[in-house]
């Protein structure tokens, strides 16, 4: 498709735009107009789960982004221009999500939009972002981007997707914990991704998933499902999300109690924003978790990570410095920080001036490959696949010891990689 395609036909809107621009020219003259363009702040929209089911994440996503924004502006902004982030609540609802994308792009005139976490919001909003031709950078860890379901304007450069996370876990789990695995997961798309990709990855490692327990999404009590876990299970793999997760973990603890139990491996998604020292969670002692970034500060933490922690306001236990009971969503929220700096890198590489350069911005991000660890990437180095619009980072496995998460394994970038399922760069804008 030719580049001038965006405004090829004089639509109602471009006519209006032309009129306004004409007016500006008449009043201020051409040089003044250019001047206003180059020193005005860059506006970024943040699609925030402030209310609804995603609110616990949303709050930390906002804090992280504010901290990153402060750092970014202190260091001179983007292309010398200050940066402004406009937060808009989507209620963690796909319909409102798509309206929010519209609002940020059309009404606020944002240069790009980022930040949504929940998959159904991302999938519900991405079509609108594509229609409006606005770069849409999601922080969702969903497999929806790399699966080829979305569009040229939607990218996930800040966080590894669930397929890669799960695949990277299988070698260590089968080699260290055991080969006969029982999986417990929520019976919807997020859980199904875990089921499908982990089952395949375990089989590739010579292990076997002997039972799969899908829990209905509306469930609030889980005790009656546990007797279905086969007795010969060596590893119990659990991943739950939503407000009932803590109940799930506690009831699992009651079920096994002090009796004989399999090795337990879980995704920290179950316990994001939850204190591991909560009553009823004692049985987690000695079990293992996937982490996207280590909540408990490790002895070998990098300088960049320590600075990141301080900037966001998180203590060494992963809680807010203002309130030790307020636990962060540490394994996910770094994606907001990194995504903001990727926008900076992309805009600077593209020589971004105005919304007319949005296409160049997407192309600049697609051209990215390795991202090295540091202030801009406190979670660690990553490799970006421009074709699938998906980034791959290191994953961590931690063991609970004395209520703290101690890292025992770090995966390599290659552990999580899989064959490309899409080449977005061949799609039209």
């Amino acid at each position, binding site marked *: 498709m030719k580049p001038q395609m965006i405004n090829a036909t004089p*639509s*109602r*809107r471009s006519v209006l735009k032309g009129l306004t621009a004409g007016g500006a020219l008449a009043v201020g003259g051409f040089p003044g107009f250019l001047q206003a363009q180059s020193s005005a702040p860059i506006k970024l929209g943040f699609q925030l789960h*402030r*209310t609804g089911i995603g609110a616990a994440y949303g709050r930390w996503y906002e804090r992280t982004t504010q901290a990153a924004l402060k750092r970014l502006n202190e260091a001179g902004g983007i292309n010398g221009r200050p940066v402004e982030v406009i937060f*808009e*609540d989507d*209620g963690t*609802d*796909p*319909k*409102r999500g*798509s*309206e929010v994308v*519209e*609002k940020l792009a*059309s*009404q606020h005139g944002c240069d790009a939009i980022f930040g949504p976490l929940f*998959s*159904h919001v991302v*999938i*519900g909003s*991405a*079509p*609108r972002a*594509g*229609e409006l031709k606005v770069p849409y950078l999601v922080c969702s860890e*969903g497999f*929806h981007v790399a699966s080829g*379901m*979305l569009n040229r304007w939607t990218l996930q450069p800040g966080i590894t997707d669930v397929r890669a996370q799960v695949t990277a876990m299988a070698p260590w789990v089968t080699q260290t914990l055991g080969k006969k695995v029982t999986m417990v997961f929520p*019976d*919807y*798309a*997020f859980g*199904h991704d875990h089921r499908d990709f982990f089952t395949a990855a375990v089989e590739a490692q010579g292990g076997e998933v002997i039972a799969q327990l899908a829990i*209905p*999404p*509306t469930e609030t009590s889980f005790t009656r499902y546990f007797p279905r876990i086969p007795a010969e299970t060596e590893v119990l793999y659990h991943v739950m999300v939503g407000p009932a997760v803590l109940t799930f973990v506690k009831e699992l603890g009651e079920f096994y109690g002090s009796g004989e139990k399999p090795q337990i491996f879980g995704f920290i998604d179950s316990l994001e924003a939850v204190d591991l020292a909560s009553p009823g969670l004692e049985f987690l002692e000695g079990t293992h978790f996937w982490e996207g970034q280590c909540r408990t500060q490790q002895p070998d933490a990098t300088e960049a990570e320590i600075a990141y922690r301080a900037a966001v306001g998180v203590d060494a236990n992963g809680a807010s410095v203002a309130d030790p009971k307020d636990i962060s969503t540490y394994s996910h929220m770094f994606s907001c920080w990194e995504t903001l700096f990727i926008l900076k890198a992309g805009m600077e590489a593209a020589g971004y001036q105005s919304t007319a350069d949005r296409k160049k911005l997407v192309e600049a991000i697609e051209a990215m490959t390795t991202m090295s660890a540091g202030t801009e990437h406190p979670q660690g180095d990553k490799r970006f696949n421009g074709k699938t619009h998906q980034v791959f980072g290191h994953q961590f496995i931690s063991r609970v010891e004395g209520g703290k998460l101690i890292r025992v394994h770090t995966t390599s970038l290659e552990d999580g990689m899989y064959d490309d399922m899409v080449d977005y760069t061949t799609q039209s804008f």
Partner: protein
Amino acid sequence: MKALALHLALIGALLAVQVVLPPYHYTNVARVMVLAVYAMGYNIAFGYTGLLSLGHALFFAAGMYATGLAVHSAPALLALPLGMLAGAAMALAVGLLALRTAGVAFMIVTLMFAQAGYLTILYYGPVTGGDEGFVLAREARMLAGLDLSADGPRYLTALAIFGVALLANLALVRSGFGRVMVAMRENEERSRMLGYDPFRTKLIALTLSGLYSGTAGAAYALMFGYVGASFAAIQYSILPLLWVLLGGAGTVLGPFFGALLMFYLIDLSSSVTDASNLVVGVALLVLVLFAPKGILGTIRERGARWLP
């Protein structure tokens, strides 16, 4: 005559206003028109016939999924009527069972059917995409040559569907059958004695209501390119009830103004305060305390008795 002129004037105004609407509102008014069709459908059952259902999301979702899934392999021109029929058929099936009950029991039965429908969508994840849903490709959203992913055609399509639905609604409530519907709401026993079959009347009204809901769901899928389970959740059964009550139950124009007002209430409150739910809650209380008949209902009471 006055009524017909008023409704035509609204359609005309919506046609005219698109020239001046800024882009953001351009899309949103299109969205509100589609949702207003849903609300009108709800109003046929609730406002006119007195059937308080909490399961209309099932009919909306039936239309949405039927069209969304069909459009993978069929042209949109075929998928759209399929979705409309799916909504009507679902309402007919639910009605055959649920209309054996009345009042609060009817409300709960419809709620249960809708909940079962919602869970079914989640259960057949490989087909429906579960809670995540799926997007419709741009090529699939071409309705007889109109690209529904572009703003202009989308607005005009929404207006066309809305206009037809509005005028059909007007014709319905002014017909003999429309009066029988109202009679059911006011006094079922008496209408039965006058020789009308309550079950049949209510079943037809509910099916028509399902047709409207399915149409809205199908149109929504094509226009906004997304099909997802959240539209089948209980929240989307409560929303049309709110729109209808806000605009005025038992008025033809009420659902549109209810949906429009509710949208802007949420939209504007979210820019003023973080606590947008609070604003909505307070607005509902104020409304129900001081204008219990809704906007149009209150206007009708205060003089404009000819309002249909």
